């Protein structure tokens, strides 16, 4: 087994407890918990950069990935996180199995629960699905995206990327741009970033901004240049192509013209601006490749790396609360 890097050891030895059984929503967290999770994740980043990356913090534990929606990046991120912590990892894709035969979400969950997993990572196309599951199983449930509601580990990894890049989150001006309406990433980020003291703006055409989002205490902009003016971070969101064909926006080219991130628009942000995107990107639709691939401004690759570390932090914290934990 690997030796944990010194920074990580120090954090691991700190006695902090994560008082929750599940990880369902960014709104469930408080500032102290987030700071602890980020410190822990920071340590895991160092570990992940070593040649030997494996610890035994979750030895003997079973992590089950239950993805009702396709996902390559999030699922493999959780899989790696689990494996690097020493857990046994099983991937289930119910799309191709029993759920298609009329079994309900709860039946599936109860069946899987009987196999005694310790951690259940769930992604589902309906808002509230992870919360519903958590009421029916005895293990810890981690929300890996529920409909248009939340994707809290994404917000955590985004916060980690920002904190490592700027050294702080409080006071940062963050513009979240694009399809906010359908975005669980946006909802989790708004909650988490505001808790950590960032100034959040939402930017997008009126058709893609949720009703009464101004009551979230965010500024709303429908013009990209005004929206990202002076921002430290520009976070782009994915817009599904089928929503752009006269449905939510008239066409791809019109969308890119007014809401796609290119050099010209980015010039209105702060000089040290960093660009983020939860992926997968629609290049030339919401973001120009030129911007996405420029490592001097883009944190997009970092976000993927931080994803594994942030998820390791979440898994470690939850596992410490599991029944008969060491």
């Amino acid at each position, binding site marked *: 087994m690997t030796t944990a890097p010194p920074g990580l050891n120090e954090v691991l030895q700190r006695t902090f407890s994560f008082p929750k059984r599940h990880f369902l929503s960014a709104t469930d967290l408080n500032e102290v918990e987030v700071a602890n999770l980020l410190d822990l994740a920071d340590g895991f980043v160092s570990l992940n950069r070593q040649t030997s990356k494996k610890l035994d913090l979750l030895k003997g534990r079973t992590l089950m990935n239950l993805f009702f929606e396709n996902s390559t990046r999030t699922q493999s991120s959780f899989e790696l996180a689990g494996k690097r912590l020493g857990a046994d990892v099983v991937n289930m894709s119910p799309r191709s199995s029993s759920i298609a035969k009329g079994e309900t*979400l709860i039946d599936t969950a109860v069946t899987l629960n009987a196999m005694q997993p310790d951690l259940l990572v769930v992604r589902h196309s309906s808002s509230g699905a992870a919360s519903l599951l958590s009421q029916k199983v005895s293990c810890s449930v981690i929300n890996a995206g529920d409909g248009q*509601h939340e994707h809290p580990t994404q917000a955590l990894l985004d916060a980690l990327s920002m904190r490592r890049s700027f050294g702080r989150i409080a006071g940062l001006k963050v513009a979240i741009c694009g399809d906010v309406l359908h975005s669980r990433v946006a909802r989790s980020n708004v909650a988490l970033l505001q808790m950590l003291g960032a100034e959040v703006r939402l930017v997008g055409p009126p058709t893609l901004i*949720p009703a009464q989002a101004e009551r979230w205490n965010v500024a709303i902009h429908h013009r990209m240049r005004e929206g990202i003016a002076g921002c430290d971070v520009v976070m782009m969101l994915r817009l599904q192509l089928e929503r752009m064909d006269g449905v939510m926006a008239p066409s791809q080219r019109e969308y890119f013209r007014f809401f796609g991130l290119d050099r010209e628009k980015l010039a209105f942000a702060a000089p040290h601006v960093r660009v983020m995107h939860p992926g997968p990107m629609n290049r030339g639709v919401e973001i120009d490749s030129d911007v996405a691939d420029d490592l001097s401004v883009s944190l997009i690759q970092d976000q993927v790396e931080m994803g594994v570390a942030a998820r390791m932090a979440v898994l470690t914290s939850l596992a410490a609360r599991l029944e008969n934990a060491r």
Partner: protein
Amino acid sequence: MSGKPIAFTNVRLVDPASGYDGPGALIVTEGVIADVVKGGDLGALSRDVEVVDGKGALLLPGLVDIRVKTGEPGTETKETLKSAARAAAAGGVTSIVLQPDTDPVIDEPSVVDFILRRARDIELVKVHVAGAATKGARGERMAEIGLMTEAGCLYISDADRPIVDSKVMRRVLSYAKAFGVLVAHRPADPWLSAGAAASEGEFASRMGLPSVPAIAEKIMLERDLALVELTGSRLLVDQVTTASALESLKRGRDKGLAITATTSINHLSFNEIDIGDYRTFCKLDPPLRSEDDRQAVIEAVATGLIQVVVSAHAPAPAEDKRLPYDEAAPGAVGLQTLLPALLTFHHEDRIPLIDLIRTVTCAPAELLGLEAGRLAKGAPADLVLCDLNAPLLIDADKLISKSKNSPFDGRRLQGKVLRTVVDGRTVFAG
């Protein structure tokens, strides 16, 4: 079959039809109300009379609930006519009007006949039906409105489904007028409502739920009011739940249009925040609204702008409710909780008792021409004896309905049904 005579003494009679709310007594013989003594007592009674000392409890006309769904025919696992009738009896509801969106849809006289015969065999509460306005309630071609009316259906409605095509709606209104039958219509713009699970606003946005703006109700209502004006027909607006639609309703009534409106007990009792952490028992159609809307609806009941309150009883079994919110079936059972939930507004000093009772007794009865809903000599002895102040903790699992989907689960209410009488027969004693 009417049982032996019953005398209710020492009760508080509430009879909105005559405007009386005060002490008194009432005697039932041969299934009808033989005498009502307001303010006094019955005097000497023969020995074969069952005397019920009310000890000051309320004696009301049995409730008339004009929007009830069961699962019969078609989905009897949800609710049968019998289980619904037992729930109604336990809730003090003595007349119910079934919605036509069963399987098969009640869109022709033989189905009307089938249900009325089934209901007669049950011999609990009085069961009536509403017939579909269009074949299959699909909003395309008119159903046999005349024949169904002849077979005994009380009003015409496509239940939850709005009639989108204005030409069809116009024809239904004018055709039904010739048969003197009332048309009910659900005001909901179908395109704005498509796929919605909640009302648009900060709450739905935060929870990531597909939502419909409140004005979807007003948009359809405005069309309907224009068609009522055009055809000179009567219209029952099926469940007004938003402040903006109430403005339209008021304008229509001020103009003298023949419109009446209902709302549901759920929309009087809950707002969207009650959905909380995706409680699917609070998923309704129309969806729960904002608190401002709820307050406006309460006010409209208080002022009489809304004349009728319905339970909107819509059973949905656990397998249809224990799903992610946007996949769960809408609707709530309500027959057994209608009366105590309504009494809340008396206990909160919001609406006078007699006005509350009117919305579930003589107002719906008069609207549909039913011989029910009043405490008058010679009227059918459909009665409910109720302890106005008795506390009640609603436990959904203990409700009589086959389906237990009550948003009132866990709520504390006041007002316990002690006895329900239909045509002089005691059908429930608590």
